């Protein structure tokens, strides 16, 4: 072992620069890997821990009404179902509502609970995380703690068509209803405010039912069955529900995005580091062949020499990995803050031994394998062969680009000769640039479609958008439509109403219906086939269709309000709102199952019309007939801004990482090249080549591989980035991604990447200055 350490120490002293760059790459890989493992192995489990701690439910159902009849029915249904483990049923109030948040609005089904009830529920209780001295007011989900929503500040909450103001008393954590991503959002009122709201009658009294199941994987089926049973028995009762399956996924979309990007980055950087390590070892063996021969001649075995390399690189890698994992704990708080702004579930950062050991294990194993693989040549070389400089360092079979015949300038021609004779550095460069091209294209795609203009992102993720959404009671529908048609401020009004139905022998689906889908703004949501035109046609979510093996033309049975009807699938859609469990029907199609008690209309308003003012006018005009008005733009902006800031940080981080990676890789390649070509450069300097010429020549060596791989990488990535992104977004129901690929920007970015690589290569090549021709003549090669 001592011999290994001595040899390893000697090697390290000789190549400090290369060692530093390899360490930096491994450190980055460890940083990414540990962050990814922490996010994927523990972060999401935080949801389950929190779920268990609060004895949270697997299915939540809020039904209008608190009659004994309803409660008895619910109790009976739950107790007769063998899947029920435990449940609690409490009085609440529930209504569609909204409040301002993050520069936009949160629109959701608001479920109001009295503080004492919320804290003492046997199933699905909440925990207060922060509170002040205010005794009368509202407690908000911790997700919404922001500049606008702070303890002591007053917030306006719209409940249906009414508005109320509350002072913020504190913040709480609710696992199943603590975010607008949960299909419902709990708000907790102090007793006096709860009684006040009840008296005002803005939100109908309801029964909040929280059910724990024996097997949480049945949450979706249970939710659908329970909701169906209630709607069958109480067809007039408005209800809202969610399930563990939906909430556990929808509250962790940001975790999924971050985790996916981190895993890809970790994998790519590790692969680059391994290629670089392998390439360095091969060069090391080539350059030190005589020394290795001498060591073998005096009795060192190949195992010992390879062992020294293992000790050297494994030791370094483990040290770098330790540092990288250490740094990941410094970076994690920032990621945590970013995540919490979407999940809304507090996460306590602590040391996680499993990701830590896995990071060390994966990196150590990969490096050991790379070292073993690339150092095999030591075992095959006899001392005598090694003394004679071992294996030829140049392939003499072909004279690449004879100077006599080439039309290229001298520096370029000499650089191309080196390029064509060195396959290893070309492979490393090509791989690095392909990865960086992918990163750049992804960044460009996100910048164009999320950061600069979020419409494509919203069209893809949210689906249909308009200026205003008004939910009107069925009896006022005709008058409302007449009024809207006559209103000059309205450019277009069309039915876009969502309800819940159930696929017989399948899952609960959110159905969106319209009179005529030709009127909708976003026709891209049906990406295969066509919208339903007749009452027997249906379009279903592609993700769901894939899971159930459904094809275009298949017939499926849908049930709602106690009725069943068959529908032919005419298309596939992708809307992420319900994580890929959606369908579209015409209004006539839905009416085969039941009638609408109220209807949501989407409106496109003329330019410069104040949306909030318009909504207020409609509310005033139709009074209680209006159940809810939504400023869609503001709502979407509020929800999407989290993703925009998340994506901005991700794009910035991956661009910085890309610059670091390309700098490290080029440093290693240039350093290796200068080391192996020291003699050649000495000769060229002696012949009269200036430092500038040699710097240019060195940088140019890498440019063919850089240029070709960047061009190919950018082109291919531009073609595959949408399918790749769709693959990435598949868990939230996106099957076909239609983001705009900004070709001009990509081309400019590609040129920028090439120029940056050239600049870095030139900078790294400045070490040529230190090569002195006199040293060559004096025999100091």
């Amino acid at each position, binding site marked *: 072992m001592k011999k290994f350490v001595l040899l390893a120490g000697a090697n390290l002293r000789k190549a400090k620069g290369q060692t530093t760059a390899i360490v930096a790459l491994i450190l980055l890989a460890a940083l990414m890997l540990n962050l990814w493992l922490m996010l994927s192995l523990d972060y999401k489990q935080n949801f389950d821990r929190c779920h268990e701690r609060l004895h949270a439910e697997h299915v939540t159902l809020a039904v209008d009404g608190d009659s004994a009849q309803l409660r008895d029915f619910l109790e009976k249904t739950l107790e007769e179902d063998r899947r029920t483990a435990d449940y609690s049923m409490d009085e609440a109030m529930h209504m569609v509502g909204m409040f301002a948040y993050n520069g936009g609005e949160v629109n959701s089904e608001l479920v109001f609970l009295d503080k004492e009830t919320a804290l003492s529920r046997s199933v699905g209780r909440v925990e207060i995380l922060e509170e002040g001295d205010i005794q009368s007011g509202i407690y908000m989900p911790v997700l919404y703690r922001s500049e606008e929503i702070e303890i002591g500040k007053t917030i306006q909450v719209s409940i249906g068509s009414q508005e109320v103001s509350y002072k913020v008393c504190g913040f709480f954590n609710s696992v199943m209803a603590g975010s607008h991503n949960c299909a419902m959002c709990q708000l907790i009122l102090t007793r006096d405010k709860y009684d006040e709201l009840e008296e005002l009658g803005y939100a109908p009294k309801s029964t909040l039912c929280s059910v724990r199941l024996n097997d949480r994987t049945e949450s979706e089926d249970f939710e659908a069955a329970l909701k169906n049973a209630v709607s069958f028995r109480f067809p007039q009762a408005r209800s809202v529900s969610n399930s563990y399956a939906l909430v556990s996924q929808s509250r962790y979309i940001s975790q999924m995005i971050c985790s996916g990007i981190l895993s890809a980055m970790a994998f790519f950087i590790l692969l680059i580091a391994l290629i670089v390590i392998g390439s360095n070892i091969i060069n090391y063996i080539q350059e030190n062949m005589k020394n290795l021969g001498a060591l073998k001649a005096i009795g060192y075995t190949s195992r010992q020499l390879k062992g020294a390399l293992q000790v050297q690189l494994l030791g370094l890698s483990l040290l770098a990995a330790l540092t990288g994992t250490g740094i990941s704990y410094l970076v994690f708080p920032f990621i945590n803050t970013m995540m919490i702004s979407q999940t809304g579930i507090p996460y306590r950062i602590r040391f996680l031994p499993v990701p830590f050991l896995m990071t060390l294990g994966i990196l150590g194993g990969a490096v050991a394998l790379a070292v073993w693989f690339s150092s095999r040549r030591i075992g095959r070389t006899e001392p005598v062969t090694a003394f004679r400089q071992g294996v030829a360092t140049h392939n003499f079979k072909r*004279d690449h680009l004879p100077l006599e015949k080439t039309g290229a300038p001298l520096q370029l021609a000499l650089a191309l000769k080196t390029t064509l004779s060195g396959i290893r550095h070309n492979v490393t460069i090509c791989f690095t640039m392909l990865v960086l091209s992918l990163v750049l294209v992804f960044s460009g795609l996100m910048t164009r479609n999320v950061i600069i203009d979020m419409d494509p992102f919203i069209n893809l993720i949210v689906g249909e958008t308009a200026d205003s959404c008004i939910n009107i009671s069925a009896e006022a529908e005709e008058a409302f439509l007449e009024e809207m048609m006559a209103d000059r401020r309205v450019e277009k009004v069309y039915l876009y109403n969502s309800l819940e139905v159930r696929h017989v022998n399948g899952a609960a689906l959110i159905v969106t219906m319209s009179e005529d889908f030709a009127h909708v703004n976003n026709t891209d949501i049906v990406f295969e086939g066509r919208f339903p035109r007749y009452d027997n046609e249906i379009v279903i979510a592609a993700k769901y269709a894939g899971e159930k093996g459904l094809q275009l033309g298949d017939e499926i049975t849908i049930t709602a309000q106690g009725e069943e009807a068959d529908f032919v699938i005419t298309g596939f859609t992708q809307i992420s709102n319900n994580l890929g469990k959606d369908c579209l029907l015409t209004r006539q199609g839905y009416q085969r199952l039941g009638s609408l008690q109220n209807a949501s209309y989407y409106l496109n308003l003329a330019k410069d019309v104040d949306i909030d003012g318009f909504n207020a006018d409609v509310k005033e005009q139709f009074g209680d007939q209006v159940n809810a008005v939504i400023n869609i733009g503001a709502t979407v902006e509020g929800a999407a801004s989290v993703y925009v800031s998340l994506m901005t940080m991700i794009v910035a981080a991956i661009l910085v990482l890309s610059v670091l990676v390309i700098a490290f890789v080029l440093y290693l390649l240039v350093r290796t090249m200068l080391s192996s070509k020291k003699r050649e450069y000495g000769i060229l300097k002696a012949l*009269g080549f200036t430092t500038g010429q040699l710097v240019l020549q060195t940088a140019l060596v890498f440019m063919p591989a850089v240029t070709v791989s960047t061009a190919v990488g950018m082109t291919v990535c531009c073609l595959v980035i949408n399918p790749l992104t769709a693959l990435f977004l598949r868990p939230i129901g996106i099957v076909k991604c239609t983001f705009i690929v900004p070709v001009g920007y990509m081309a400019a970015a590609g040129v920028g990447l090439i120029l940056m690589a050239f600049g870095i290569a030139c900078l790294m090549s400045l070490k040529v200055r230190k090569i002195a021709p006199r040293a060559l003549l004096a025999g100091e090669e």
Partner: protein
Amino acid sequence: MKNVLLKADCLSKSFSSGGRLSHVLKNIDLELYRGDFTVIMGASGAGKSTLLYALSGMDTPSLGTISFGDQVISGLSQDGLAVFRREHCGFVFQQIHLIDGMSVMDNVLAAGLLVSRNKKALAARAEELFSAVGISKETWKKFPAQISGGEAQRVGIVRALINEPEILFADEPTGALNSKTGLDVLDTLTRFNQAGQSIVMVTHDMRSARRGNRILYLKDGVVLGECELGAYVHQDQERHRKLAAFLSEMGW
């Protein structure tokens, strides 16, 4: 009257090693003349090669000036010296120093293309020089590792002469060769000198030194003496005796 090509005034060169200053060249005043075959002799460590590097712009002196015609080269930057070397000098090294990854022809053209962009003219000159040194056409496309030491050194001479330098510096050009190939190389250099090429050669071999018309003897960093032998004539015993006497006088 001889035409001065290169002139050194008070040339000194010191090296610092392990905190100790070692004075290798001490206040040397020297003129090198156009058309001469100047040989620098001396024992190992006398400073022969250091003098050659300094005169050729391969290294910078610690003190003193070196002038090439009207141009003082001792004050030039590294890049300025590189330009000086490529435009005015040719080099033949003891270890030959051809570039392994380039064919024989490319080794020559890589030096030629630094000065001229006229590939046709360069190729024609290379062919002429190859022919003059006895390198066959088949060898042009070979790599240095595929030819003999003698051939390689003759390629080295072609490379040194491709830019028609005003002065050719040769550092122990036969040092790594056997006697037969060494003699071929010396004959080649002699022929070029006889055709007007100025040559400065460092050697510690008397047989090589005979080719020069002017012998400088260096000892402990100073030019101890010099001897004018006149133009080389094959089998001229008188020249041999004169050189032997000079070297004997210098303590060789």
